[in-house]
C-alpha cells in the first residue's frame, strides 16, 4: 500500500512540475486524495524556498579564495614532496653534514647552479630546506625565504635565456601590465585566454604567484596567477637584491639577466658596486634608468613602480628620459623616491636599461652620474648637473 502511495505521490509531483493543479493531479488517484493532498500542498511550500541563482560576484570571490588556498597548500606541499629525505629530517641533515665535511665542492655546491628540470635541482631545493630548518630566528628564516624567492627569479631568467621548456612557479610584484604581457619582478609573463586569473583585479604593485611554463621562445606562458596572502616574504624587484649578492657571493647575477627588458637586475647589480653603502635593504637605495610611464605621482622606471609624491625633482620630467632616483623601497615593494634627477631628454622609447647604469655611484657624485648617463642616453643634456 505504502509503495503505491509513494509512487502516486511521485506521479502527482511530476504533474505539478508540469504545471497541473493539485486537483487535476489528484484526479488520477481518487482513492488516495485524502492522504496525498496535504503532502502535495507541502511540496508547494517546499518549492517556495528554492531557486536562488548564484550572484556573479559570489562565484568570483569563491574562486579567488579557493585558488589562494590551493596556492598556499601547494607551497606547503612543496617541501615534503621534494624528496623523501625531508621526511627523515635527522637522516637528511646528517647526510648533508657528511657531504659538506667530505667535500666542500661536493654535490651541494654542484647543485647551486642547477635549474628546474636538472638532475641536481632537487638537491639544491633540499639544501634550501635544510638551511630553513636550521634558521634559529624568524628574521633569519625570512631572510632565507627572501633569498630563495630571489633565486627562483634568477632560475627563471636563466631558463628563459636558455630557451628551455620547464614548469615553474614564482612570486613577485607586478611592475608592468600591457595587453597580454606583464612583468612580474622583472620576469616577462605572457597572459593568454587560458590563463586562470583571480576574481579580484590585479594591478601594478599587486603581489602574485605565477604558475606557468617557460618556452623555447624565451617567454613565460602563465597558466594561472593567484594573489599572494599578506605577510608572505616576497623580494622587491630591485634595490634589495644588492644584499643578496653580498650574502651569496655567487658568480651569477648579471649574466643571465642582462637581456631582461626591465633591466632591473642589471641596475641592481650596478648598485651593488656602490661604495660602502652599509644601510639596511630598502633604505637609501638608488635607482637609475629610463622613465617608462608617468601617471601622476606614480611612475614606472625600468619596470619598477616609483612613487614621487614626496620627492625633490631636478630637471624636466618626461617619459623616456633617463633619471637617477634616490629613495627606498617600502614594504609594498614600491620605490619611494626622495630625489629624482633627470639626466637627459631620452624619448627614444627604449628601455634596454642594462647599459645605461653608471658604474660608479659614490656618494655626492651626481656630476659623475650625469656624465655616465649622458653617454648612453643619447641626446642627454647637462641641465641638471648644475642644480647640485
Amino acid at each position, binding site marked *: 500500500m505504502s509503495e503505491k502511495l509513494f509512487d502516486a505521490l511521485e506521479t502527482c509531483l511530476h504533474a505539478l512540475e508540469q504545471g497541473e493543479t493539485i486537483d487535476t493531479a489528484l484526479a488520477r488517484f481518487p482513492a488516495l486524495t485524502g492522504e496525498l493532498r496535504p503532502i502535495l500542498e507541502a511540496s508547494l511550500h517546499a518549492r517556495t524556498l528554492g531557486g536562488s541563482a548564484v550572484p556573479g560576484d559570489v562565484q568570483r570571490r569563491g*574562486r579567488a579564495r579557493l585558488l589562494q588556498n590551493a596556492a598556499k597548500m601547494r607551497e606547503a606541499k612543496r617541501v615534503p614532496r621534494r624528496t623523501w629525505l625531508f621526511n627523515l629530517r635527522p637522516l637528511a641533515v646528517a647526510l648533508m653534514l657528511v657531504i659538506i665535511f667530505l667535500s666542500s665542492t661536493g654535490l651541494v655546491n654542484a647543485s647551486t647552479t642547477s635549474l628546474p628540470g636538472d638532475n641536481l635541482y632537487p638537491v639544491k631545493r633540499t639544501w634550501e630546506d635544510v638551511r630553513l630548518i636550521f634558521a634559529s630566528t624568524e628574521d633569519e628564516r625570512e631572510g632565507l625565504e627572501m633569498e630563495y624567492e630571489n633565486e627562483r627569479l634568477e632560475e627563471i631568467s636563466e631558463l628563459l635565456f636558455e630557451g628551455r621548456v620547464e614548469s615553474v612557479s614564482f612570486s613577485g610584484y607586478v611592475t608592468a601590465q600591457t595587453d597580454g604581457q606583464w612583468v612580474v619582478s622583472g620576469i616577462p609573463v605572457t597572459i593568454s585566454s587560458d590563463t586562470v586569473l583571480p576574481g579580484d583585479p590585479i594591478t601594478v604593485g599587486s603581489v602574485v604567484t605565477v604558475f606557468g611554463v617557460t618556452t623555447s621562445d624565451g617567454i613565460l606562458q602563465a597558466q594561472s596567477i593567484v594573489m599572494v596572502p599578506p605577510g608572505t616574504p616576497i623580494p622587491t624587484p630591485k634595490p634589495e637584491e644588492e644584499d643578496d649578492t653580498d650574502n651569496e657571493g655567487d658568480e651569477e647575477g648579471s649574466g643571465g639577466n642582462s637581456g631582461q627588458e626591465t633591466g632591473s637586475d642589471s641596475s641592481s647589480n650596478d648598485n651593488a658596486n656602490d661604495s660602502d653603502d652599509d644601510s639596511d635593504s630598502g633604505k637609501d637605495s638608488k635607482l637609475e634608468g629610463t622613465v617608462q610611464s608617468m601617471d601622476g605621482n606614480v611612475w614606472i622606471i625600468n619596470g619598477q613602480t616609483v612613487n614621487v609624491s614626496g620627492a625633490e625633482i631636478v630637471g624636466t620630467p618626461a617619459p623616456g628620459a633617463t633619471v637617477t632616483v634616490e629613495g627606498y623601497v617600502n614594504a609594498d615593494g614600491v620605490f619611494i623616491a626622495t630625489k629624482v634627477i633627470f639626466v637627459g631628454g631620452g624619448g627614444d622609447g627604449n628601455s634596454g636599461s642594462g647599459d645605461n647604469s653608471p658604474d660608479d655611484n659614490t656618494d655626492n657624485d651626481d656630476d659623475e652620474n650625469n656624465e655616465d648617463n649622458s653617454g648612453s642616453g643619447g641626446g642627454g643634456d647637462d641641465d641638471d648637473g648644475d642644480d647640485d
Partner: protein
Amino acid sequence: MTVSLEQRELDGLRDLDPQVISAAYDRYFSDVYRYVCYRVGDETAAEDIASDVFVRLLEASQHGRGPQTNLKSWLLGTASHIVTDHMRRAYRRPTESLTENVLDPLAVPVDELERRERERSVRDAMKQLTPEQQNVLALRFGEGYSLEETAAVLNKKVNAVKALQFRALASLQRGVGEVAYE
C-alpha cells in the same frame, strides 16, 4: 569515458592543479551554493559555507580523504555536514536578522509582506525536520534532482528516498500548520 574524466579530475585536485580546481569549481559551485542557500536561507552564510566546501575538498584530497568516485555527491554531502554544524551553532546562539528588523512594513507592498511571512513560516517548519529530511527536500525541491539523482547523492536506494520524501513532506505540512497557529 566518464569515469576516466572524473578520475583525471580527482587526480588533478590531489595535485592541486589550478586549472582542474577552477573547472571543478565552475561545474559544481552553483549546485552547492543553491543547496546550502536552501538549507540555511541566508545568502551570506551560504556563500561562506559553499566556499568552505571547496576548500575542504582540497584539504581532504591532500590527506587521502577526498572523493573516490562521485565528486558531486561528496561536495553535497560535505555541504550537508557543514550546514548541520552551522545550524547547531545558530541554535545555540540565536541572532535576529538585521534586515527583518530594519524593514519598514509600510514601505513594503502587502503581497511581498505576505510572501515573506509565508516563506518564514515554511522555513521555521523546515527547521523542525531531521537533517536527513531537510536534505531530501533540498535536493528534490531546491536542486530539482530526480529521485535517482537524489538517491545517488544520499547514497540510498530509490525506494528509501521515496519514503523519506513522503515523511519529510508530511512533517513539513504539520510544521507549517503549527507555525501558522502560533
